[in-house]
């Protein structure tokens, strides 16, 4: 099976800090890869390296067989890479519908040409994430959970082949997490590949085909969710060394 995304010995240094240190992994079409690790492990940097908002210090990123590490972010999104931001980035002055319409107007393959079509698409994706009733509101009037949904709808409207989700469940309560989990299942059933960064282990366990763990920028474990989450090294990284 040909991987849709291959990360090959990828390294990112910020001055003296090595945020991502020689990490390699592959992501297969239609699968969900969970990316976990303590705060500061380099998860968001990894997403930024793949989406193109940060340039790598060394290593390769290969998407659908072609190297993309030298491309600016907008070209990668046209190839079919969509992402959400952990620190959400809505367009505050636009209403919710038009926020999502921007995704439909650009995104994969350059997107829709006509504003009308893009708005129809946007309405579809807002309903998909359960935000249909807020279309006319300004984005900066939304509360936290709805902003998360908006991030997701904006990324989906870009019609991505690969979706990078950076903590879309942080700050949500149980019922809301279940909703987002079922949305991500629906996304997967459309054939979209997902890289899922999350601290909510219940969701990682339920959704991921495989799990990858970063710690201080290096990969410390990779494999099936149950095996990885019970790996003593992973438990140590999250909870600190057991002193008993």
């Amino acid at each position, binding site marked *: 099976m040909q991987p849709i995304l291959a990360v090959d010995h990828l390294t990112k240094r910020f001055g003296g800090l090595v945020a991502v240190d020689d990490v390699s992994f592959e992501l297969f079409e239609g699968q969900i890869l969970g990316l976990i690790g303590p705060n500061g492990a380099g998860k968001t940097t990894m997403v930024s390296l793949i989406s*193109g*908002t940060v340039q790598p210090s060394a290593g390769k990123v290969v998407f659908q067989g072609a190297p993309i590490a030298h491309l600016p*972010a*907008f070209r990668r999104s046209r190839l079919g890479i969509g992402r959400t931001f952990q620190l959400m*980035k809505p*367009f505050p*002055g636009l209403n919710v519908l038009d926020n999502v319409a*921007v995704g439909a107007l650009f*995104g994969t393959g350059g997107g829709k040409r006509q504003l009308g079509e893009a708005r129809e698409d946007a309405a579809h994706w807002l309903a998909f994430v359960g935000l249909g009733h807020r279309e006319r509101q300004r984005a900066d009037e939304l509360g936290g959970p709805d902003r998360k949904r908006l991030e997701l709808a904006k990324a989906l409207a*870009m019609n991505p082949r690969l979706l990078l989700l950076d903590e879309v469940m942080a700050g949500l309560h149980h019922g809301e997490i279940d909703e987002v989990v079922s949305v991500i299942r629906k996304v997967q059933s459309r054939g979209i590949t997902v890289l899922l960064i999350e601290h909510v282990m219940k969701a990682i366990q339920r959704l991921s085909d495989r799990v990858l763990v970063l710690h201080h920028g290096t990969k410390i474990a990779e494999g099936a969710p149950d095996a990885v989450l019970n790996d003593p090294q992973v438990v140590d990284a999250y909870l600190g060394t057991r002193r008993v």
Partner: protein
Amino acid sequence: MMRAVGSIAFAALLLTLLLVPWLAPPALIQFGTTTLLLATLAQSWNIIGGYAGYASFGNSVFYGIGGYGTAIAMVQFGLPFGIGILLGALLAVFFALLLGLPVLRLRGHYFAIATLALAEAMTGVVSNLDIAGRNIGLVLPLRKGDAFFYELSLGLLAVATLTVFWISRSRFGFGLIAIREDEDAAGVMGINTTLYKALAFLLAGFFSALAGGIHAYWITFIDPVSAFDITLNVMMIIMAIFGGAGTIFGPLVGAVLLSSISEILATEITGMASLFFGLVIVVAVVFMPRGLTDLMQRMPGLGWRYFRENLRLHRL
């Protein structure tokens, strides 16, 4: 019904504006021409400042280049006005690309300061060019009658406004707005931010240069200090923001109102004019930072709360 009434009122307004040179006294035609040119400048600033969110202090550079291009073509090469103004506009577009590509990499205050420096630099450069008459300037051939310049300015403003109207509902315009609201998110969503910013800068430069060309021919004189005067750039920003930056008609409303207020103050109470003008601007920016357009849309619903909310949201 409301739409029909609106269209008729709009057509009547346009017709009246068109007929001004045949109905009004010369002083009013001159005031009208100045106001139309200022409105064109505010509207072109609106493209880069209002839609793309880049506070340009370099638009008066394009205005000056347009004026000088026209003057040099007519005086030094004996070309007709029509060709001169087009050459001036092309020169401005060339400069917009040349300067825009490096300068548009800067954001926020840094962009503003860099464009401010451009205006100063241009004054210095042009003052030392023989072809531009060095620091003395150039005298253009005289064309009698204000009607020609008035109608030309009205036409230019109409084209600039139609362009902004198109921008406001096009894919291009949505790209600019996304850049204004969050440039990183815009890039990740597939918008070629560098290209879009450069195009917005170029369009703003094009219309500013045409206004500069008309003005130079109308006044029949151009010199480095007044051609690249930064006060003019400040005026267009204030007019656009006062009326409502990032809207279609905001800059026009701002230009007409502020131009009228300044005209009345200047003739009635000369000494106090700039003081009053300054006060109007301070009050407007503090209480209605989103401009008149936003005030008219939202104040009827909110009442006095509108001002309180603005104070709360926009304080430092």
